[in-house]
Each structure stands twice: as structure tokens, then as C-alpha cells.
């Protein structure tokens, strides 16, 4: 490949194929091309069968034009016979534009035959208007994952959504209210907390009644779902109907606990303190009135401007936050008075103890005299305790013995 074949090699090959000697083949080859040169020099064409045609031209660089024979050209291009000229699908400029800008930058007005229609390959979904799509929050909350799929508006799909939302509504349990009432009966001292719980229960029931109203006004074929929703909402309203009034001890003249369908629960007798005198009770009521006024002025999150209906209910029932705060004030005042009384009693007892100690005074002079006497009695030696002294013989110095010894 890419080698240069000399005339000797060519002659050997020709001689081997033509069954002649290489010298004979070389002579014939040389004579052939000499004839071709003379022919071209004469201005004629020279054609060798199976090789091609030579023609003299006027160009200076290559005065001989060679046109290979057809079979020669086919044989040389035999490895590329499988390829054929292919028309391009799009013009080269557009292909380069696609390479540069990507598919998005493909111009819409494509000139030429091979126009690429990308829009036809795209999958189109039916348009969904937001008005036709109804998704309930209950369904989304209750269903774990597939509820987030938006469904197009259709009667069947809307009905299914309504049914699921109705089924998933948590119905308040009756025993829970009974248990609450029993708890109220057994724990009357926590009547303030019970009223708060009651408010919470009412608020929750009101919210549930609002949430459980199915939105089927727009649906044409959702009559069954509407009826079921109404039934459910009526049931919920029935559960919100029983009135729970806070149990208050008879000392405060509060009504007992009442529930619908049940006999009123009588709270146990509760007298935490002995009955107060009338003066004290009047003072307590005054303090309660003073505490009640600012409490009513305070904004209440449960009954605000957001829910005027709820405010009206609370005012009609008479169990409002101001009232509970007044009870709190009464209890607080009672506790304060009791605490003050106990403190005063303790101080009185302490004072008595101190005065009792002070009523028995001790003089310091008597105590010092008594102590001195006891010291003297301890320091005076008795006769039996003195040491015995024996007399010394004469001639010795008796001065020491006379001085230090006592005569018996």
C-alpha cells in the first residue's frame, strides 16, 4: 500500500499472468507507452483497453489528461460500493445551529426538504383549568402519597374525591364527652380547666363542621355526595349540640354539669374552707368585679372578630372567658386570704413563743455570783486532802519545814 511499483515488478507480474517472460513483457510495455507518447505528440487520443484514455491538453503542468476506464474505476472503488450518496435531512446551517444552540434553538421556519418537526414528537396532555380541578385538603392529608395527583374534572373522579373526603372525616366519639363529664364530676376543683377544655371541644367541633362541608356546588353529578356530606355535617352538629356547663361548687352558686340525654351529674360536696363572714364575701366579690372588668376587655383568641358566630354562642351560653377569669379571681382571692390568715397565725405563734421566753428574765449579776461561789468551793482544800508532814531531827534547818508545814 502506498508503495511505488517499478517497471520491473510490473513486467514480472505481466509476464507471470500472460505466460511470457519478464523481458518480453517489459519490451511490450515500453513499446506500448512509446507508441502512446508518439500518438499524444501527434495530437491524437490513445486508449488502452481496461485502463483508460489519454488525451493531450494545453495545460503546462499536466499536458496529458487521463480518464480511467469504467471497469477500472469500479474495481478501484469496490470497497466503497456499499455507500451511496445520501441527501441530508436538514441543511448544514440548521444542523450547525442545532449543534450550537441545542434543540430549543431550532428555527421553526426550516427551509429545505429534511425539516425536523420536534413539536410532533412531543407528548401533549389535555389542558387542565384550575377551576375544574377540585382537591380537598382532607383527602390530601388522609392519603399518603397518591392524593397529591391532580385529576382532571370529571363527574366520576369528583364523586370519588368527595367520598374519600367524607370517609376520612374523623367523627367525634360520644364516650369522649361522657368521659369528660365524668372527669368533671370527679374533679370539680379543676372546673376552670374543664371550661377551657369545653371551649376547645366546641372550637374543634366548629372547625370540623366547617371542614366537613363538602364542596359539591360546582359538581353536576355529585348529588349523592352532597347528601352524604349534609348527613355527616348534621351528625357533627348533633355532636356539637350538648352543652357542657362548668361544674362549680355549691358554695359559689354555680349550676351543675348537664349533658343531653343524661341525668345531671351532681358534684360532690366541696367545702374547701369554712363559710366566710358576709363582710369578707363582699370584699371578695368586689375584688372579683375589679379583676373581671380588665379580663373582659382583653382580646380573646377563641372568640374574636374572626368568628362572630362563636362569640355569640359564648355570650348566649354564659360561659365565657370573662366569667372563667372571674372565677379565677375568686379562687385567687380566697387563696390569698387563706394564706394571709395562715401567715398571721404563724407569726402570732412565733410572737407568743418569743414573749414566753422574754417573760422569764435572767440577771447577769446573780449568774456571776453563783459561778464565783462554785469556783471557790472547788478551789478550797479540805483537811483530809492536805499532805501529812513528818518532823525532822534536830540540827537540821527547820525553817523550810516550819514554814511549809502546819502543826497538827
Amino acid at each position, binding site marked *: 500500500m*502506498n508503495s511505488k511499483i517499478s517497471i520491473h515488478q510490473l513486467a514480472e507480474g505481466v509476464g507471470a499472468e500472460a505466460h511470457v517472460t519478464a523481458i518480453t513483457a517489459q519490451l511490450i510495455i515500453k513499446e506500448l507507452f512509446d507508441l502512446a507518447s508518439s500518438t499524444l505528440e501527434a495530437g491524437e487520443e490513445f486508449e488502452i483497453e481496461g485502463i483508460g484514455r489519454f488525451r493531450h491538453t494545453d495545460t503546462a503542468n499536466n499536458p496529458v489528461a487521463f480518464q480511467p476506464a469504467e471497469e477500472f474505476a469500479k474495481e478501484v472503488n469496490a470497497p466503497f460500493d456499499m455507500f451511496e450518496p445520501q*441527501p441530508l435531512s436538514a441543511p448544514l446551517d440548521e444542523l450547525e445551529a442545532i449543534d450550537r444552540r441545542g434543540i430549543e434553538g431550532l428555527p421553526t421556519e426550516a427551509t429545505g426538504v429534511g425539516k425536523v418537526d420536534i413539536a410532533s414528537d412531543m407528548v401533549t396532555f389535555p389542558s387542565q383549568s384550575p377551576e375544574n380541578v377540585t382537591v380537598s385538603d382532607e383527602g390530601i392529608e388522609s392519603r399518603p402519597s397518591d392524593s397529591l395527583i391532580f385529576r382532571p374534572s370529571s363527574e366520576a373522579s369528583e364523586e370519588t374525591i368527595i367520598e374519600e373526603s367524607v370517609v376520612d372525616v374523623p367523627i367525634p366519639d360520644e364516650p369522649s364527652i361522657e368521659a369528660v363529664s365524668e372527669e368533671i364530676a370527679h374533679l370539680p376543683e379543676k372546673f376552670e380547666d374543664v371550661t377551657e377544655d369545653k371551649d376547645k371541644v366546641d372550637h374543634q367541633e366548629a372547625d370540623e363542621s366547617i371542614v366537613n362541608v363538602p364542596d359539591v356546588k360546582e359538581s353536576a353529578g355529585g348529588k349523592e355526595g352532597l347528601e352524604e356530606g349534609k348527613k355527616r355535617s348534621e351528625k357533627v352538629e348533633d355532636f356539637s349540640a350538648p352543652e357542657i356547663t362548668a361544674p362549680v361548687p355549691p358554695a359559689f352558686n354555680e349550676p351543675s354539669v348537664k349533658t343531653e340525654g343524661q341525668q345531671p351529674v351532681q358534684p360532690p360536696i366541696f367545702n374547701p374552707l369554712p363559710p366566710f363572714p358576709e363582710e369578707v364575701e363582699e370584699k371578695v366579690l368586689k375584688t372579683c368585679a375589679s379583676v373581671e372588668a380588665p379580663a373582659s376587655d382583653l382580646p380573646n383568641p377563641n372568640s374574636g372578630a374572626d368568628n362572630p358566630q362563636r362569640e355569640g354562642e359564648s355570650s348566649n351560653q354564659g360561659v365565657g372567658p370573662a366569667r372563667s377569669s372571674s372565677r379565677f379571681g375568686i379562687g385567687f382571692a380566697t387563696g390569698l386570704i387563706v394564706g394571709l390568715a395562715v401567715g398571721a397565725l404563724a407569726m402570732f405563734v412565733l410572737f407568743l413563743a418569743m414573749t414566753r421566753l422574754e417573760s422569764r428574765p435572767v440577771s447577769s449579776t446573780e449568774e456571776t455570783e453563783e459561778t464565783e461561789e462554785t469556783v471557790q468551793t472547788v478551789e478550797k482544800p479540805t483537811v483530809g486532802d492536805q499532805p501529812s508532814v513528818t518532823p525532822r531531827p534536830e540540827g537540821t534547818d527547820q525553817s523550810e519545814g516550819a514554814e511549809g508545814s502546819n502543826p497538827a
Partner: protein
Amino acid sequence: MSNEKIVEELSRRLDIPSSQVEATLRALSNCIREYCCKLDTVAIPGFGTFQPVKYAEKIQTDLSTGKQMLMPPVVEVEFKSSVVLRKRLAR
């Protein structure tokens, strides 16, 4: 000049039977084609060289219609005349 005249002239000049000349010419064309298919260059002194050249695929544009075609690779046999031939022709 046609092939028959070439055979007659060669047989006359070389004093070789025309059949042998014809067979030799047929063998010569076969050898040149065989070497050119191998992309080898055949050099004939005093006349020129047969050089096969391979061109890669290319895109051709038809200027009249604007249509573009992808052309496959092709091998073309080019003849380059020798200096001796050019001098003879220039004379």
C-alpha cells in the same frame, strides 16, 4: 488509436504474434488495476505514473436547488505525466 490498431502496431514493431501482444496487454491492464486497488503507484519510465488517490466522504451542495448530498469516499486514479513526456509534447 483503438486497441486493435495498437495490437497490430506492436506486433509489427516487436515481431511478436498479435495474440501474445493482446494477452500481454490484457495482463498489463489487470496488473495496473490490481496495484491501483492496493493504492500502489505504478511508475512507467518515460511516460508517467498512475497514482490512486483516496478522497474522504464530503457534503456536496447543489447550487441550483440548494440540496445537499453526503458523498461517500472515493478512490480516483490520477495520471501524472513524466518530464520526458512533457518535453516531447511541448516540442
